[in-house]
């Protein structure tokens, strides 16, 4: 005859004494159990105050430390070589006579400028006219009546007292006309 299955132990033996056993039975006991169920798990919340403090400090730091500046850009210019490198040039090579553009700052505090292109040309008065002058005289794919190749040397000759802004204005006119061999000379009178 088969042995009968072992009788299960009562909960009091398995889990210890009932914690509610000493409480009075009835409505009070039921209401306490119900409240525990309805309350659910405890709410876990982060204290964000410290983080917000740090975040605001960072914000103030970056706002105070940021300066919005206009974009700086560059013109590329290769200065003429000096010294021994000139001795290696082909002695039979003909030099292109550079086009010299003189620029002077005139007027009160040098706010105005005067342009002088060396040669028998009608003189430009403004940088825009200088741009037109240079464009019209460049040999290009659409103009065969020009005088200068795009790599023809152009030398900007500011006077000693010429403001850098005006020197760069003349340089810019030549660069806008797509000349590629532009440089500055020693200051003239």
């Amino acid at each position, binding site marked *: 005859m088969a042995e009968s299955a072992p009788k299960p132990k009562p909960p009091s033996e398995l889990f210890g004494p009932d914690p509610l056993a000493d409480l009075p039975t009835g409505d009070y006991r039921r209401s306490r159990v119900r409240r525990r169920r309805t309350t659910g798990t405890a709410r876990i919340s982060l204290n*964000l105050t410290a*983080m*917000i403090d740090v*975040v*605001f400090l*960072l*914000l103030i730091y*970056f*706002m105070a*430390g*940021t300066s*919005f500046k*206009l*974009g*700086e*850009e*560059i*013109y*590329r*210019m*290769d*200065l*003429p*070589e*000096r*010294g*021994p*490198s000139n001795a*290696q040039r082909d002695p039979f090579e003909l030099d292109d006579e550079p086009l010299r553009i003189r620029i002077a*700052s005139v007027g009160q*505090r*040098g706010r105005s400028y005067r342009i002088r292109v060396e040669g028998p040309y009608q003189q430009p008065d403004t*940088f825009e006219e200088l741009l037109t002058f240079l464009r019209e005289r460049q040999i290009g794919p659409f103009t065969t009546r020009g005088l200068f190749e795009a790599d023809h040397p152009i030398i900007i000759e*500011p*006077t*000693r*007292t*010429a*403001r*850098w*802004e005006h*020197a*760069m*204005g003349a*340089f*810019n006119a030549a*660069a*806008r006309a*797509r000349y590629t061999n532009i440089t*500055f000379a*020693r*200051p003239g009178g």
Partner: protein
Amino acid sequence: MSAVFKRGSARIQANLTPMIDVTFLLIVFFVLVSQIVEVENVKLQLPAPEDPATELPDDEQRVVINVVPAQPATTGRAIEYRVGSRRFAAGEEGVDALADHVMRLYSGNPTLRINLRADRDTQYEWIEPVLRAISIAAARTGESGITARVNLVVVKED
């Protein structure tokens, strides 16, 4: 007694989530647009030619020479040339020292480009010595492949 009085006074709480979102966005914005102040750049009123045919500087190796104007800048004079934290007086001795310094830089890196920054009011007689010093420095290195490459820095105004 009503339920309101049973629970006590109501706690008033602000919802901080949108504020933190916006604050973080602002921080990200300022981090992205702010540039660490470059010691090598002196505050100058750079020339601003009309419709400039310029280009943006790329990531090539370069050193910046600043022509520092006397104050007020409208006098057109320069007081010194500054390369990083090194200063050279505006004058023949300073220009010679500048040429030596640039020559040492060239010997370390023959393909170096030099950014020239000068105030728009500075007169050319104070800027030409810098160009001359750069040219002399390139010649003094004795290497035939070195060309004095200069970037003339301007500001692009819309």
